[in-house]
């Protein structure tokens, strides 16, 4: 027998896990809104495929995101007067600068999505990548990013001036993650894989098994996402919609998102905001417990 953990150890581990997450129980949104909605786009185009050394056609599939998809998402958000957050891989600034400039001039937020879609294990290189991304985004937007969607070390993000990350899903609501000393570190804006376009449409992930192929249609995903929105709307809450320009930028999916946003807008009390706006609101109205902030 290996030394299986006993009940007391498991209980303590569960407690430590809970202690690290401070959930905002009842978020009070501006103007009495019932729900805050963040539309987010993870803009990596073909960089992740390149990192995995995938073949030419896989890269071309990613390029759709930079040549076509990102432009359509910006246009869609602008038509609906929604400000979105574009989690941008740093090196995309050298590949698709025009699209990013257009996003900024429309008032969308640029945030960190790693330098080349990976977090190096070496601490110095991790810091180097984080700073390179911030500098590249700042050159385009004129301001330093304050948010990230990454596995970057939370304390490092915080020391570099970041206020939020958008990565896990331990709660429907925004929450604080505490560091190893129990001090509040970053605000987290949760996103769930079930509200991630790639999980439904990014068919044929390289070398994935048949049984894990993602193949769906826009009617079905529209219904699923509408139900997710309504579940949070009814009780008051938060929804983060994670899109990828190379996936959602396809014409049929832009049309689906157009219908989804239009339907959300038929209800009162929906606050469409950037992640930064939601994060700043949370930090002000719902500061972390035990903090002097």
């Amino acid at each position, binding site marked *: 027998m290996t030394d299986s953990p006993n009940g007391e150890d498991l209980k303590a581990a569960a407690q430590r896990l809970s202690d690290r997450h401070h959930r905002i129980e009842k978020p009070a949104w501006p103007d009495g809104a019932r729900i805050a909605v963040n539309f987010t786009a993870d803009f990596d185009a*073909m960089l992740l495929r*390149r*990192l995995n050394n*995938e*073949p*030419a*056609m*896989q*890269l*071309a*599939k990613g*390029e*759709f995101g*930079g*040549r*076509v998809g990102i*432009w359509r998402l910006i246009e869609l958000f602008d038509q609906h007067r929604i400000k979105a957050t574009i989690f941008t891989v740093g*090196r995309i600034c*050298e*590949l*698709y*600068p*025009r*699209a990013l400039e257009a996003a900024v001039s429309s008032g969308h937020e640029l945030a960190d999505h790693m*330098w*080349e879609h990976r977090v*190096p294990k070496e601490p110095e*290189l991790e810091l*180097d*990548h984080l700073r*390179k991304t911030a500098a590249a985004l700042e050159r385009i937007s004129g301001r330093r990013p304050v948010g990230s969607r990454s596995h970057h070390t939370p304390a490092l993000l915080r020391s570099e001036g970041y206020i939020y990350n958008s990565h896990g899903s331990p709660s429907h609501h925004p929450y604080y993650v505490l560091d190893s000393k129990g001090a509040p570190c970053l605000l987290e804006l949760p996103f769930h894989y079930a509200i991630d376009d790639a999980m439904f*449409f990014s*068919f*044929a*992930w*390289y*070398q994935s098994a*048949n*049984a894990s*192929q993602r*193949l*769906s*249609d*826009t*009617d*079905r995903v529209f219904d699923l996402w509408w139900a997710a929105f309504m579940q949070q709307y009814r009780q008051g809450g938060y929804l983060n919609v994670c899109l990828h320009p190379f996936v959602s930028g*396809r*014409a*049929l999916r*832009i*049309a*689906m998102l157009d219908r989804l946003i239009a339907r959300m807008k038929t209800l009162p009390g929906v606050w469409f905001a950037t992640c930064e706006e939601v994060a700043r609101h949370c930090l002000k109205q719902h500061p972390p417990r035990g903090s002097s902030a």
Partner: protein
Amino acid sequence: MPWKDRYTISDEKSLADGDIRWPEGRRCAVHIVVDLSIASGPQGLEMRDLESPAAEFGSHEGLELVLEALQSHGLRATFAVPAVLAQMHPAKIKALIERGHEVATHGLRHEDVSLLGRDEEKARLERATEILTQVSGRKPAGWFSLPRQTDPFAGGTISSSTMDLLIEAGYTYMGNGLADDIPHYWVTDFASRRAILTLPYYYHFDDQFFCMFPVAGTGLENPDMLLRNWRAELDAQYRRNRFFTMTLHPQHIGWGHRLAGLEEFLRYMTALPDLWNPTGAECARYWLATYPAATHLKLEPSIWKDYPGSLS
């Protein structure tokens, strides 16, 4: 160093909806591709591929049914044909052309050319072109590298030489690219702006994946999803004045309820006014004349850099 050298295959931004014009003021181009390959593995068509009932169905009854469905709606298609398959069924291939369709090359045997050296790939490409020219009576204008069902991803495989070899061999277009949803230029050399026109392909509009996944033969297939994907994309692209493409495999789409679904979709599609239904070569020739690379391919100096600690 041009800005996407060694990195991306085309220019930074696609043509905007409002800048696209189709012949005679048509609203949307519809390109139908019928893949006649029944190859299952990376070696392309092998003896074992000719032992299944699906191979029999796809080459005869299924093909006839798909042809009838297209013909009854006055639609024409580009048939992607592995050269060895043309040798097997020369009369059928000739008949396709007589019925107004186009025959394009789908490899010598629809093999994975990324497994070949440049010389071997070149020799097979030349042989394939020769065979199809002989069987069909005309030199093929288009080349396809469509995915096989056992590929580790769904985009189709090419080698680093393929596009260049196609230009060298005088092909007008490459039939399946994923970087755009309209015809676009695939650049092989940025300094000289050497490029080949590429027609768009997308796996969500390819019947085989909805009929083969998650597991072929389990009944867990999704032809209803396929129809919804076709319809949603056609509607969206029609509104944008762009381009719609679908990829059919007679052994999959030709069967029973799937065929009925195809017919239903074709009825819906052909009821839309002002569609343009060219074959691949017609579309490519129009595009090359209207949006030539010389004026429409916009390549700029690179701002891509190499950094220590980063992928170059």
